[in-house]
């Protein structure tokens, strides 16, 4: 039915689609484990993406000629600005929800409005600066360093294509997901963090600094999610930023959190499944244009089914953190 080369291409494309989702959901899992339901993730990923674009733009414009580009700087400057932007966004969310105890849903949605607007606004401003004909900024020189692949990957046939054909940020996503998974389940710090998310009052009584845990988890989570935006712009889109290009991937990342039942290690295969569901309509022959739209529903429908099954089966280890979405105030105990 399908030739093996189609399957290999499909898998490779699924991974590429899945990586931004993996970043987003790893960040969100870490955040949710502290009891913060950060619905600002889509906005934060936009901010991370535009942060990388601004960094790369400044760097490319500071060069006398494109040939002078230095790999270290070309990677570090966008990386640094992405981290800075997404960290500040996370910090703002924390300040409002943890210190000022604002409603998390409202704050998160406001942050998404702000972040998406921020990304599109600065994206459009950069487009205007470059005086380009097309409504997008192309940063191909910097992007070339992000998309650089292992030199021998091309010689290894299908193995090379499926496993070795990605830029370094793709592997970083998997490493980060594994590290977060180990941190959450195998270390004392992870245990403390989960305690905060389940029952902050108990955690507080046990001497864990609840606010600090929430701040740390949420800010680090934001940075991880922001890297998803960077990966999208610099690797997936080859350094081309166009407004609204990132689409609804941020919400899909939140869906993936549920699909992975709050475990980053499950999110790794989960992200590939989601990536595959996202593009499967391109690979099924004879799908009409209109049915493609129905196929794009799949990731969300699958998430709803998982959400329902998790709530019906009521397995303790698969539940959302018990205090998810609630602010903690010591005097309320």
């Amino acid at each position, binding site marked *: 039915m399908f030739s093996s080369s189609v399957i290999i291409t499909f898998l490779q494309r699924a991974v590429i689609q899945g990586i931004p989702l993996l970043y987003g959901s790893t960040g969100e899992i870490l955040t949710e484990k502290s009891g913060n*339901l950060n619905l600002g993730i889509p906005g934060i990923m936009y901010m991370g993406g535009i942060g990388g674009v601004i960094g790369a733009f400044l760097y490319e414009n500071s060069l006398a000629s494109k040939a002078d580009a230095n790999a270290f700087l070309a990677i570090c400057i966008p990386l640094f600005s992405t981290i800075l932007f997404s960290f500040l966004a996370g910090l703002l969310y924390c300040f*409002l929800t943890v210190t000022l105890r*604002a*409603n998390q849903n*409202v704050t998160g949605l406001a942050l998404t409005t702000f*972040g998406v607007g921020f990304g*599109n606004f600065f994206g459009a401003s950069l487009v205007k600066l470059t005086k380009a004909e097309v409504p997008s900024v192309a940063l191909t020189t910097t992007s070339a360093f992000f998309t650089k692949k292992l030199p021998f990957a091309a010689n290894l046939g299908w193995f090379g294509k499926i496993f070795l054909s990605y830029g370094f940020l793709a592997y970083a996503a998997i490493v980060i997901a594994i590290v977060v998974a180990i941190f959450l389940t195998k270390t004392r710090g992870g245990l403390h963090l989960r305690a905060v998310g389940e029952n902050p009052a108990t955690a507080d009584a046990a001497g864990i600094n609840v606010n600090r845990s929430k701040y740390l988890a949420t800010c680090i989570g934001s940075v991880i999610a922001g890297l998803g935006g960077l990966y999208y712009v610099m690797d997936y889109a080859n350094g081309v930023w166009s407004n609204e290009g990132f689409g609804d991937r941020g919400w899909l990342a939140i869906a993936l959190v549920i699909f992975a039942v709050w475990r980053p290690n499950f999110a790794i295969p989960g992200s590939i499944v989601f990536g595959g569901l996202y593009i499967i309509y391109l690979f099924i022959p004879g799908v009409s244009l209109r049915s493609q739209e129905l196929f794009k529903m799949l990731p969300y429908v699958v998430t709803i089914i998982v959400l329902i099954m998790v*709530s019906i089966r009521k397995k303790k280890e698969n539940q959302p953190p018990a205090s998810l979405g609630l602010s903690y105030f010591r005097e309320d105990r």
Partner: protein
Amino acid sequence: MQNEKKVREPLFHIAKRPAIAWHKAWGIRALSILAALIFAGIVAMALTGENPLAIYATMIKGCFSSERRIWMLLQTLVMLLCVSLAVTPAFKMHFWNIGAEGQVLIGGLATAACMIYFGDKLPPWLLIIVMVICSMAAGAIWALIPAIFKAKFNTNETLFTLMMNYVGIQLVSYFVIVWENPKGSGHVGVINQVSQAGWLPTIGNQKYMLSVIVVLALTVFMYIYLKYSKHGYELTVVGESENTARYIGVNVNKVIIRTMLLSGAICGIAGLLLVGGTDHTISTTTAGGRGFTAIMVSWLAKFNPLYMIATSFLLAFFERGASEISTIFHLDQAFSDIISGIILFFIIGSEFFINYQIKFTKPAKEVK
């Protein structure tokens, strides 16, 4: 000196305020809006290089300078208010319905379907009745699905309703291609342009008058429903404490389902007004993010329908005003999102000072 003490006294501590006088609470909110305006003015100045006062003058002009603009502002206001009214009973019940976007879209989709399929088959008055019923039913069903699972299995409604939005959006984009006109354009185009079948009547030659009247009626209805009806009382109790509700004999599951049906049906009306009343077409952006903005409108107004007129005015003003700035100063449309975001952050933050007070520790008396 400080280091010698074994226990360092914190500089201040935070305590819950007892109920605060309403004028103080609104004073704090007004101050926060003022602070937000100043901050947003600085941001706008940095981006445009213009005098902030000139920027605000442009915003006000953009909203009020002509009769057409005032109507546009009113339309933005009432549509936002309509969706906010829809989500409010659910929020009051502590059911985080963030699926209004999808519920509005599905309501609009049902309206468009009636207009397209029955446009030349039914007499005009019957067609409009069918549209009203279908749009409300469609919105209600979209809200009912998460409600049933919440009631039966306690499925997380925030995430469920969020996902339902995207299922709804994809369903709409499927039908947009099915109905596209002309073929291959990717748009539905104006439905029944010639016959105008299913177009809601215009009152007094004003395109937006009907929405304004319907939404005002809904506002009054919702105020009475929440404040004076038994249903309103029951859903408030469920929101405050499910156990208390059970104890006093409220059927919690029934209340959840009933409230969500109402919430979804009003979203359906919003879809009806948008598709049948003003746009006469449908696209994935018909709801235009109102489902999300409405959550903030409702929350800022403390779930009080009358206050919501003020909060939706505020957000509508910024949306229209910022879009005027972006036209005049050649900025991207996304500018209005940044400004709305800043305003929201300030107001959200100000709630803290209404609910809590900071008590500075008095210098400790030397006890020797």
